[in-house]
């Protein structure tokens, strides 16, 4: 190939790492479901509703909240959820 021009890459030149997702649990029996409010308006209402459904089904839940919807969740919060729950619902509502 004749090279007419050489350009420089404007990107960060990084490659995404693909990680396999965890398989969904066969059952939620005996497990704890994290309910995370991402901080948008009325997220609480949505999670209250979900919490009620889980309660009726006898499934334990724990509530978490991101400090603000405008920023990514702090690492500590993600670690806490990973340590305390086996599944998570991240709620988005407006």
């Amino acid at each position, binding site marked *: 190939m004749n090279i007419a021009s*050489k350009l420089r890459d404007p990107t960060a030149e990084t490659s995404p790492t693909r990680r396999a997702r965890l398989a969904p649990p066969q059952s939620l029996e005996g497990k704890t479901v994290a309910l995370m409010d991402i901080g948008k308006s009325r997220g609480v209402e949505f999670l209250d509703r979900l919490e009620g459904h889980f309660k009726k089904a006898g499934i334990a839940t724990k509530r978490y909240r991101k400090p603000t919807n405008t920023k990514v969740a702090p690492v500590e919060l993600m670690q806490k959820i990973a340590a305390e729950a086996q599944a998570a619902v991240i709620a988005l509502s407006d």
Partner: protein
Amino acid sequence: MADTLPNDGLVIVAKRDCPTCVLIEPVMQNLDRAGALTVFSQDDPTFPSGVRSVVDDHDLERSFHLKIESVPTLIRFRGGREVERTVGWDRQEWTRLAGAAAEGEGLPAWQPGCGSKSVEPGVHEALLARYGETGLKSRQIDVGNWDDPIEACFERGWSDGLPVVPPTDERILRMLGGTDRKPDEVIGLIPPNLAPCTVEKVAINAVMAGCKPEYMPVVLGVLEASLDPLFVLHGLLCTTHFSGPLVIINGPAARAIGMNSGVNALGQGNRANATIGRALQLIVRNVGGGLPGAIDRATLGNPGKYTFCFAEDESDPDWEPLAQRRGIAAGKSVVTLFHGEGVNGFIDQKSRTPEELVRSLASGLFGVGHPKLCLAGNAVLVLAPEHYKIFKDGGFNRRRIEDELYQALKRPGRDVIRGAHGVAEGMPSSFADKMVDKFQPDGLLIVRAGGEAGLFSAIIGGWPGQSVRDECQAVTHEIR
């Protein structure tokens, strides 16, 4: 090049366009008669006449490798190495270096030379890209002989949808010449991928955006401001809302690079306005990985997401510019970044007093986001000259305008709660018995810009993310 250089002998680099080179043409002829002489001629291989070994250096490769800064330059080689050189015409120096044949009888004793063509603006970088070590670290991408470099940029996903300037080494080196910061300096981590961004990457994207090298300090300042955690760039770029970064420049840098704060200041036509805002967006896209439809989830977006950048009109000494209002001393170059949606034109051709205009502007500002939503996002008010004149003639300065607008933007909660006036949207019912402010206390940023004619102003709505005041605000930074 080595084959054209003498092992032992003299080399002169000259150009016909240089009066000193023309002056010493007889000296060059004498030296040729006296011994080994090679002349590298930068602009005309027939110059100098009467010399046997004249090498055409139109492409300036020899001048580049010999590091010629001015012509004529006389160099003596011995044993294949340069041992001495002198620049310009100086009889004493030339005869010391080349002997009596260089006396130049009848010539003045001394005359300065001219700049070498190899160091003319922009040429050095081109020569460095072609013949030298660029030092650039970014991956090199070859574009085939039959490929269009602009299309190659599109195909690789580097464009915001408009053609970009292909980032060649020559252009990148010129861009880097606009700053004294080192190419490998990391400016910060660009969201969403939190990828490190070096000055070199900034320069590449600035080239693509169409910037001139002298914009680099402003581009770097804008990028640094955008990475202030209080600006929440990550949230802004992934929001479903319309907003994107709005760049407002104050101070001497805006004037130095010819930014527009006058006619059509928010529109097209000014290179600095257009490309500085675009450079920021390209950096977010290319370095940070913030792609529309991927992490950028804007429902509709706005045209300002291509670029949205202007300067404030600071021509009236009675007006306190935005940068000073936000705490930066006068005389500094400053960037303010705001989370701006599109421009909402505001017309009032009837108000003649400041009081009338305040009430009128407030009625327009209530519409930001939604007329019944309060404290849900801020705004920029761009006062055009004719509206500003009403305030100035009435004795209102910036602080007075802000105070009066703040008061005029209060409403009884019962008018703005959900369901009031048959409109479902609005504030929670807990606000029913309170007076409610439209914006946070410092949430309305007023700037002056625009052409002389037109009783208009512009309202630029903000982003709901600004409602969490401690987490997200407009930011103002001095440009280094």
